């Protein structure tokens, strides 16, 4: 495999690929776990929602927007104390997951919120008319009805995370992007850069196709 790279570079490439996979997977996992409840909360407290409450909705929306406004490379450095608190260290692949997860959560919350908003209000009303509780409406109506949209949001987030993870080198996170910068760019090795870009393209394509396939399978519309 890849005869144009030295055995050492091949090892580095494999290691970097695993690091990217780990950072993207872990950050996306955390983002989904945190983002779905937050999106449901935002959706429920919005005007006309299940439990309208501007006192919850506005500050929460503000925080989400604030995190989204900060360029990732700055966010990563700016929250170093927080990262140290959570991960015990501020450098390395594990530490890079913290800012990645934070950025991805803020990103996915809005996408989830949009997907939830797409659910027909009439269906929610019908559930209310049948005596469903708010939790039942969330668990049995909002989430299942929005599932294709939620999955599409996860796909978009995964793809964006692949891009973000390329900046993880700034905090010693490693990964494919970092390898491309350090070897392909700084050491003038175009074959490394080309290989990294190729793998990233295949990676993103794979994610997108998988996501689309799942959405199609789950969509009953």
């Amino acid at each position, binding site marked *: 495999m890849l005869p144009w790279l030295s055995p050492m570079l091949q090892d580095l490439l494999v290691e970097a690929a695993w690091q990217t996979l780990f950072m993207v997977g872990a950050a996306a996992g955390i983002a989904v776990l945190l983002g779905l409840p937050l999106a449901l909360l935002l959706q429920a407290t919005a005007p006309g929602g299940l439990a309208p409450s501007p006192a919850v909705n506005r500050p929460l929306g503000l925080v989400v927007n604030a995190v989204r406004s900060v360029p990732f490379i700055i966010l990563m450095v700016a929250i170093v104390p927080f990262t140290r608190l959570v991960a015990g260290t501020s450098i390395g692949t594990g530490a890079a997951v913290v800012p990645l997860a934070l950025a991805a959560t803020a990103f996915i919350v809005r996408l989830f919120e949009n997907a939830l908003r797409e659910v027909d209000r009439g269906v929610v009303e019908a559930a*209310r008319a*049948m*005596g469903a509780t708010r939790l039942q409406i969330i668990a*049995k109506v909002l989430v*299942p009805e929005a599932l294709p949209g939620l999955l599409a949001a996860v796909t978009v987030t995964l793809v964006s995370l692949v891009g973000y993870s390329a900046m993880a080198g700034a905090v010693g996170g490693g990964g494919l992007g970092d390898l491309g910068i350090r070897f392909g760019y700084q050491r003038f090795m175009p074959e490394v850069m080309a290989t990294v870009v190729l793998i990233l393209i295949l990676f993103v394509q794979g994610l997108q196709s998988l996501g689309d396939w799942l959405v199609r399978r789950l969509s009953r*519309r």
Partner: protein
Amino acid sequence: MVSGFRMMFDHPATEAPAAVATDPAIRLTGLRRRFPGAPAPALDGVSLEVAAGEVFGIVGRSGAGKSTLIRCVNLLERPDAGRVEVLGRDLTAVDEAGLRAARRGIGMVFQHFNLLASRSVAGNIAFPLEVAGLPRAEREARVAELLPLVGLQAKRDAYPAQLSGGQKQRVGIARALASRPAILLCDEATSALDPETTAEILGLLRELRARLRLTVLLITHEMAVVKALCDRVAVLEAGRVIEQGRVFEVFTRPQAPTTRRFVAEVIGNAVPPGTLAALPPPGPGEVRRLLRVLFAGPHSTRAVISEASRRFGLDLNILAGRIDAIGAEPFGIMALAAYGAPAAVTAATGWMQGLGLTVEPLPEGEG
């Protein structure tokens, strides 16, 4: 027979005494609702009573407040003022849990069906049972009963996107009936359907109503729905009930101008334009009277017009007419121009009234 006796004697002793027959299933008192920022109230003091077992229609133009009104019955919309009593219970006074329990006893059918796209037909019908916490086996048994009731056995595992409008509404009806409600609310249930499917769904509702002894409250903007299905009707305009009564009465003797226009859509008997201007003037010593005669009951088939003409020496010119039936009650409405001596016309009018017909001057706007 045996099961009949069991049902009679198995009533638990703790159950509240059965409601007196005259107790209304739904009683709305002085409902008011004004949406923030709206120039006029959606409901401006509406009071209605729907008797147990009757089909009550509320008809009105869009914006008349019908939708708000029907959504007040299960408190999807909370009125600013007024009482909502369903089966003797004031729903505006119960807490959240009590309201959810009450809602399970009130089925609702929607204009746009409001089915869950992610669930099959069976899953949609089972939804209210799932919400009520029924075990799976009982849910499945109930779904198996309901599917043939609405004629959807073959579509059990289909998804809403694979169904026609009429089939979707059948699912909506089965879902509304799943928890055996005593009351069914229909929110423009046929307005999104084509005429043929509308007739089909109305037929189904009529059949179910008789079979399940349901109390039905429906809103519609189509008088044809009221004529086909309802026992009583109320006409809503600008958030107020402007007229109500038995469908037969309202159709044959509409009072308010809005009601007349609604009725004319279904049993139009307006005098064709230009007819009155073209009528010959009365001869010397004669008068010309424009009359509206309503035949109802036993005389709807009698040859009253020619008999009156012969007996009183009148010329009777028929300007417009219609023979129809509401439910099993036939009726005829006729617009006449009567020519004759003033005394003869008056005598003929009295004679017809003596037969039980309603004779009145032709109302303005119908000539």
